[in-house]
């Protein structure tokens, strides 16, 4: 009897782990494309966005898989948000270090020289050309980071106010304020015709 129980326990634990891994696999499959698009809107670099999503997935699996699954979504987006913030900070530091050595960027790429002209980055102009997602991306780029995060988590990922607050590490009141201001600014940037 004791022998049977001692054999059953690891088996049961193994089965639980397998079930949890399958749930995590489904969760990641569900969020990965949207997470990638959100990262891409925030940093505008496809390869870096893929790396950031992968990092967020690894962190989610290795550190938070044991959390209740209804907490996974806000946790995952909090990790993603932190990775995006780290990317921006790292880029600033790297540029500062590079400027000390007199170079323009890691590969000699001059961001000022290659920055899009104001005409190219005008959301209203893109709307007129029928390029709606590009127009939306260009407009989102012009929002303050917190407003952009709140707007994307609420509307693109469908998190409710409390989940968004958890993901952003702020109060639910702040989330509402950020979202409202973001919507007003987007309306201003995209123009009446976008709707």
């Amino acid at each position, binding site marked *: 009897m004791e022998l049977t129980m001692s054999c059953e326990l690891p088996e049961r634990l193994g089965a639980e782990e397998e079930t949890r*891994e399958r749930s*995590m*696999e489904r969760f*990641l*499959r569900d969020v*990965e*494309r*949207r997470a*990638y*698009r959100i990262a891409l809107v925030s940093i505008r670099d*496809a390869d870096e966005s*893929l790396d950031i*999503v*992968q990092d967020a*997935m*690894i962190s*989610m*699996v*290795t550190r938070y*898989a044991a959390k209740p699954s209804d907490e996974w979504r806000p946790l995952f987006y909090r990790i993603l948000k932190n990775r995006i913030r*780290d990317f921006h*900070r*790292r880029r600033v*530091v*790297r540029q*500062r*270090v*590079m400027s*000390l*050595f*007199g*170079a323009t960027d*890691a590969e000699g790429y001059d961001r000022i020289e290659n920055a899009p002209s104001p005409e190219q980055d005008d959301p209203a102009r893109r709307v007129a050309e029928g390029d*709606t*997602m590009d127009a*939306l991306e260009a407009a989102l780029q012009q929002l303050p980071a917190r407003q952009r995060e709140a*707007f994307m988590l*609420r*509307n*693109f990922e469908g998190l409710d106010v409390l989940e968004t607050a958890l993901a952003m590490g702020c109060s639910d009141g702040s989330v509402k304020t950020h979202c*409202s201001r973001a*919507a*007003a600014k*987007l*309306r201003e940037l*995209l123009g009446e015709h*976008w*709707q």
Partner: protein
Amino acid sequence: MSASDSQTHRDLEKRAKSVFDESVANLDAETCSKLAQARTRALEHGRRPLQWWPTRGLVPGAVAAAAALAAWMLWQGPATAPDGLELAALQDLEILLSDEELEMLEDLDFYTWLDEELQVTETGDDSVG
């Protein structure tokens, strides 16, 4: 906010979600494949025993390099540097010392090499090896 503004905001949010959903649905096959690979790799990490500090051997060198870099950055500033400069350098140090910045420190070899290359270019020395 007026009722009409509120309705306009809701319309805009609805339209934005629809445009975003469409862009997600139209992601190219290569990106979808890379995301699937990333997911597989992440799940593989979950099966490994947890490594608390996988790059332990790098830490003393990384800390020393970061401290030297921060000191050099402070030294580069003018004698009457504003407080903001020191603060920025300290923030850089904080970023450099965080455990996720080791990759940046590993790149220091590259920056050193780049600096040497630039000096060689300036002096017209194009010898190889």
